[in-house]
């Protein structure tokens, strides 16, 4: 293509996409900017205190947690995705979707369930004592789950689907011929996996691991149960116990800067990589004998420990709760609220994600790349802290709307966004847009640019190319991102609590309300419905990927 032709393409690619991407980035950026303003108010003495008393331990704990969780999710996610996509073994079709199930279980539920199951007075240790002939936990008990290794293991077990999902979507779109070429050149299944599949999967592994690690780092529920002190815990104690919001915002923003720097570093590492897609589907290798059963076992373990055990616990607790207190009459309405707001937010997030990634694709350049990065900021901040940043932004918008309405119509609608739940949609989108942009981007990276050029030569406008080529090709990636966002919205607690209207509950706020006195068993019914709502899209997604 001549430079002139290329330029004319770009010119016609229109500023519309750029402007739209800019608008999306600004939407996400506003709450972070608000946090910046809070931070600027200053917090004298904070950093001296942090450096001498907090950082040495909290930073080390954070790093250990992230390394541990990162190792587990990357390994577990990639290996299971590869097994399901490229091999045939007993149970493969079931594992295809079952491996996603742990996604539906919130981290704080998993932590609580395991603490209850594995506590010295719980059923597991009780059975072991009975078996060994001890009568009291004073005579014999196992190491406490409330520890760093326990926390790493539990978070890894529920967060690995963040890697499994995009990697598997990527393998589904992946050039079967590249892997065939590998095999033709004499590489066995293991060598193909290590030398062809893993390098190919890197964008998806990176995106998935980054998402899982941000979840792990910003988690406060599980960490609190399991006694792990991350930097996020310091953010909370600075804010809650010392009424020092500026200080908390400063720590959160410093963490955000480090997170973004790491993400950039990884992206730079694969900047020069370009991928070509082939239309050939992947041919599965049939595994036999111990290999086949080994594959089954590898896929069964995370499902059993990440989903089946906590879900079984929840069913038991929910049944006990049902017999004790019956079913709350409001739970149906709350389930409806949850599904409605999560679905709406998912749609909006996917649309905005398409806008941002589309702009970056159509107008490749520093500006659109930056927009794409900025639009992911919301995920790298702890949920409550982001919600606090959203408050002034939404309140300001509400005041403007009220003033305009007063001037034009002569009536004031009060606080429209905060009063209607629209603030929740904004919060969910701002928080989870990273999942949309990340997932779609990873999917698009499989679409070679030559395809764009061919479509453009055939007279399609950039928008048409995007609609007719990019979106259909990346459908599995879109579906996967949509699922992650939906489930995350259903589980989301801190922003929902803070930004919802009066007299309005979702399942997660109901769960919190029941659990606030410290009894998570009481919340088991709501928790079980959260898990069930999370399972539905998993089923839908399984079909989409298979097609």
């Amino acid at each position, binding site marked *: 293509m001549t430079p002139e032709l290329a330029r004319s393409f770009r010119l016609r690619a229109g500023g519309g996409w750029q402007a739209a991407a800019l608008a999306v980035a600004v939407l996400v950026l506003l709450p972070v900017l608000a946090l910046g303003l809070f931070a600027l108010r200053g917090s004298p003495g904070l950093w001296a205190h942090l450096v001498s008393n*907090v950082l040495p331990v909290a930073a080390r704990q954070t790093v250990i947690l992230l390394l541990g969780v990162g190792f587990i999710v990357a390994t577990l996610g990639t290996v299971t995705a590869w097994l399901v996509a490229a091999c045939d073994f007993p149970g493969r079709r079931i594992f295809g979707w079952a491996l996603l199930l742990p996604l539906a279980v919130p981290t704080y539920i998993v932590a609580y369930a395991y603490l209850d199951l594995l506590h010295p007075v719980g059923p597991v240790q009780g059975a072991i004592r009975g078996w060994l002939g001890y009568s009291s936990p004073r005579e014999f*008990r196992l190491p406490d789950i*409330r520890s760093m290794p326990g926390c790493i293991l539990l978070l890894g077990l529920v967060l690995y689907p963040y890697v499994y999902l995009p990697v598997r979507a990527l393998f589904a779109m992946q050039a079967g011929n590249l892997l065939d070429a590998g095999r033709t050149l004499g590489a066995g299944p293991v060598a193909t996996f290590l030398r062809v599949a893993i390098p190919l999967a890197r964008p998806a592994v990176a995106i998935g691991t980054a998402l899982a690690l941000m979840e792990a780092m910003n988690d406060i529920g599980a960490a609190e149960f399991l006694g792990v002190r991350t930097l996020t815990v310091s953010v909370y104690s600075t804010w809650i116990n010392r009424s020092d919001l500026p200080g908390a915002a400063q720590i959160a923003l410093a963490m955000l800067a480090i997170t973004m720097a790491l993400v950039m570093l990884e992206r730079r590492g694969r900047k020069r990589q370009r991928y070509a897609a082939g239309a050939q589907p992947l041919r599965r290798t049939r595994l036999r004998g111990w290999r086949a059963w080994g594959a089954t076992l590898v896929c069964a373990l995370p499902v059993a420990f990440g989903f089946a055990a906590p879900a079984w616990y929840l069913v038991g607790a929910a049944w*006990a709760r049902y017999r*004790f207190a019956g079913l709350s009459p409001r739970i149906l309405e709350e389930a409806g609220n949850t599904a409605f707001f999560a679905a709406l937010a998912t749609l909006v997030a996917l649309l905005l994600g398409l806008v941002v990634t589309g702009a970056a694709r159509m107008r490749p350049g520093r500006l659109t790349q930056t927009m794409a990065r900025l639009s992911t900021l919301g995920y790298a901040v702890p949920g409550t802290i982001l919600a606090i940043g959203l408050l*002034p932004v939404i309140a300001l918008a509400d005041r403007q709307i009220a003033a305009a309405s007063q001037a034009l119509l002569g009536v004031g609608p009060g606080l*429209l966004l905060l009063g209607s739940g629209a603030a929740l949609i904004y919060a969910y989108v701002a928080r989870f847009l990273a999942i949309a942009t990340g997932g779609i981007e990873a999917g698009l990276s499989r679409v070679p640019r030559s395809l764009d050029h061919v479509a453009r030569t055939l007279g399609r406008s950039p928008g048409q190319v995007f609609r007719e080529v990019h979106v259909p090709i990346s459908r599995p990636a879109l579906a996967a991102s949509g699922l992650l966002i939906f489930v995350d919205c259903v589980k989301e607690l801190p922003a929902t609590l803070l930004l919802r209207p009066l007299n309005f509950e979702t399942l997660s706020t109901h769960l919190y309300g029941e659990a606030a006195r410290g009894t998570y068993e009481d919340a088991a019914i709501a928790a079980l419905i959260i898990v069930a709502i999370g399972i539905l899209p998993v089923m839908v997604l399984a079909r989409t990927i298979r097609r």
Partner: protein
Amino acid sequence: MRVGLSGLIGAVLAAQAVAASAQELNLYTTREPNLIEPLLASFSESTGVKVNTIFLKDGLAERVEQEGEASPADVLMTVDIGNLVDLVDRGLTQPVESEALAAAIPENLRDKDGNWFALSQRARVLYADKDLDLSSFTYEDLAKPEWQGKVCIRSGQHPYNVALTASYIVHHGEEAAKTWLEGVKANLARTAGGGDRDVARDIMGGICEIGIANSYYVGLMRSGAGGPEQEEWVKAIKVVLPTFEGGGTQVNVSGAAVAKHAPNKDQAVQLLEYLVSDEAQKIYAEANFEYPVKPGVAVSPVIEDIADLNADGTDLTEIARQRKTASELAEAVGFDN
């Protein structure tokens, strides 16, 4: 979807109706729905005032602050003296003059200008292995070497423990408090964390022998409200009311304030007055096993063994003021590490 949509529309209408109706009242609270709802239902029944609620966790003050003059909030209700004082410091409350409130609540349990009112009290008590020969205990004892490896407690950053440390600072000064925290830390049987009920469960599980937790959990566990397992946990312990050397048992409060821009101020005051009525105070005692603020209202018989509370006389606002130092001390000694 229909349910969600109608919920959405309903919420919009509710938000718009809020300022208009004279017989409504908007409550922002961090207290548990299960506890508050019986109180509100009984209030609505006797007064005809409908209560709209939002149950929050962290950020109640931030939300009201950002909503500004347009805020629909009438009553702000929360736990921990620090949170109440914080609301006042941020200018989110307004002074209330009410003879009924002044008559029902002892002077040390309300703001002298009427910016906040305590509605119930809870004590920070000792859970001990039921076989221990222990009938009296001081908070200072927690740091004694004889308890090495035998103490369970939740995070030193939890507001309940921060308030305890803050009280310690008021009694003995910052240096002594630091030494004390170091001593308690050295005695821990496991990492500080979890909830107050875990202290009872961990004592039953043989992990520790004593621990500090809130008084009302004893009632919640004993009453069976937390399920049959918790009834077992609480049977493994006995409860002792500890004191400060030369003082009483550390007490914290739940309380409420009337919001500065309350659109329904009269109803707001009406609700506060209801909450200190004999009837409401009895619900606090019976349903949540808290100590009533109103003299003469009995505590629940379920916690009869700790009914005779000798509350520490320290000024609550004094404790609130030491909160920041207390929280920083907990970090300085690495209490939670």
